[in-house]
């Protein structure tokens, strides 16, 4: 009886270990399917009813609350909404360009981390550790001023550059984990056919990696959208900054921040649902 229990316990633990996904190369290898990198963002899928329900609850709650505020308390909420939404283009601009930058940096970092050359490994490793060890806000301000000292660039460009560098490190880890999730046999089969390692990466490994890491990139996109609010300290007029400027004019701090929060919440929820749909479609196509 005891024996049986311990065996069952072991099996349970084993499956747990297999299910747990980590970017730590020493941790148990994940299956070849997908990598889950949760950021606390709940991406609702059809199969997970409770998440979908809570997603709906939050989303429609936020919509209803916004509607009530606008319809029944037009003064001052209508004005606040109008002001804050003025920051929307900047927020999106920063997010989209930064995520593109981060994907590019991340691809090279990820490839560098699995490279056979030790010095390339070292550079990528140091970059990742450096970025991971410093708060995002500190990095942003630092890079912003560092870039400003040496080049004369616009605030927007500097902000995008800083965010790309910061998120590039995390993206690099995702790419690396994605590459390592591809079975070893794929690389072996490719080089056994006479392909070079770089050809094998280009035609065999990376196309499969993209599929594996796309959901994780979706998650990063959502994090990026939220973290882009940090650029408001770099005097960029994004949603948060527009709100704060409004506060300094009217001193309606609580009301304004409520609206800012609602706007971010609604965008984030819409995006997470989109990522969920994208993921489902991806799985359907094999």
């Amino acid at each position, binding site marked *: 009886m005891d024996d049986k229990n311990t065996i069952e316990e072991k099996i349970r633990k084993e499956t747990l270990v297999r299910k747990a996904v980590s970017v730590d190369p020493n941790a148990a290898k994940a299956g070849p399917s997908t990598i889950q990198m949760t950021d606390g963002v709940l991406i609702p899928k059809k199969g997970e009813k409770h998440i979908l329900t809570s997603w709906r609850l939050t989303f429609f709650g936020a919509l209803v609350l916004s509607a009530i505020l606008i319809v029944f308390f037009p003064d001052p909420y209508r004005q606040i909404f109008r002001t804050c939404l003025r920051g929307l283009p900047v927020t999106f601009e920063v997010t989209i360009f930064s995520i593109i930058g981060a994907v590019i940096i991340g691809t090279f970092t990820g490839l560098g981390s699995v490279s056979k050359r030790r010095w390339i490994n070292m550079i990528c490793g140091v970059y990742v550790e450096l970025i991971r060890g410093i708060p995002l806000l500190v990095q942003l301000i630092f890079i912003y001023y560092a870039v400003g000292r040496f080049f004369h660039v616009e605030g927007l460009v500097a902000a995008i550059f800083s965010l790309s560098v910061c998120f590039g490190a995390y993206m690099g880890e995702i790419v690396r984990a994605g590459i390592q999730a591809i*079975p070893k*046999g*794929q690389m*072996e*089969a*490719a*080089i*056994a*056919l*006479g*392909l*070079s390692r770089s*050809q094998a990466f280009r*035609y*065999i490994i990376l*196309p*499969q990696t993209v*599929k594996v890491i796309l959901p994780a990139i979706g998650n990063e996109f959502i994090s990026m959208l939220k973290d882009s609010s940090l650029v408001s300290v770099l005097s960029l007029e994004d949603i948060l900054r527009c709100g704060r400027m409004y506060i300094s004019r009217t001193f309606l701090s609580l009301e304004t921040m409520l609206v800012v929060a609602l706007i971010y919440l609604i965008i984030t929820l819409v995006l997470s649902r989109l990522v969920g749909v994208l993921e489902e479609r991806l799985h359907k196509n*094999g």
Partner: protein
Amino acid sequence: MAKIEIKDLSKDYTTPNGVLHAVKHANLTVNDGEVVVIIGPSGSGKSTLLRCVNALETATAGHILIDGIDVTAPGTDIRQIREEVGMVFQSFNLFPHLTVLENITLAPMKVKKMDKAEAEELARQLLKRVGLSDKADVHPTQLSGGQQQRVAIARSLAMKPKAMLFDEPTSALDPEMIKEVLDVMTDLAREGMTMLLVTHEMGFAKAAADKVIFMDNGEILEEGTPEKMFTSPENPRTIDFLNHIL
């Protein structure tokens, strides 16, 4: 066609528990057009030996000559060798994101710079040869194990190799699919392909092999014609092994 000579080959692995001698001083010659089958219990170094031939594993000591070119020498262009020596894996290792046709045409197009039409023509011929003409445009995951392995063989053949290595090609297959793969391999052997195989299919070894090698604990213990090996083996370990599996 090609001649494979393995001379005094050793392969050691460093493990946390010390050094593991996977292959110890192995000597083996596969003549042009010969089919040589390596048998032995699992963990005896058969696959390692095979993988050293196209340098998927780096030998610790010794030499491997393919048509006189030393694979283990530092200046050797290993990619050139790999183009000429095809390999078929136990787990097929087809590329799941590509169709069957693209799986076969990839290497000729990227390595040999063959143009697309020519490569596809070649691929269709090869698919016909392995009996899968109608599967050109499906993805490998939609195929059975036996079909996947036949595609893998076609993929290797597309590089027009001088020799083929098979690493337990039927071990991951259901019994009813083994035959279809063995038939393709038997055809290849009959056409004079130089083949070095690791397999547990004694029927194939008896029918198609020119030479059977018995390996245990990293050492080649006995070699001979299939007739001799299966009817009157001399080494007690060989006798013991054959008694267990036949």
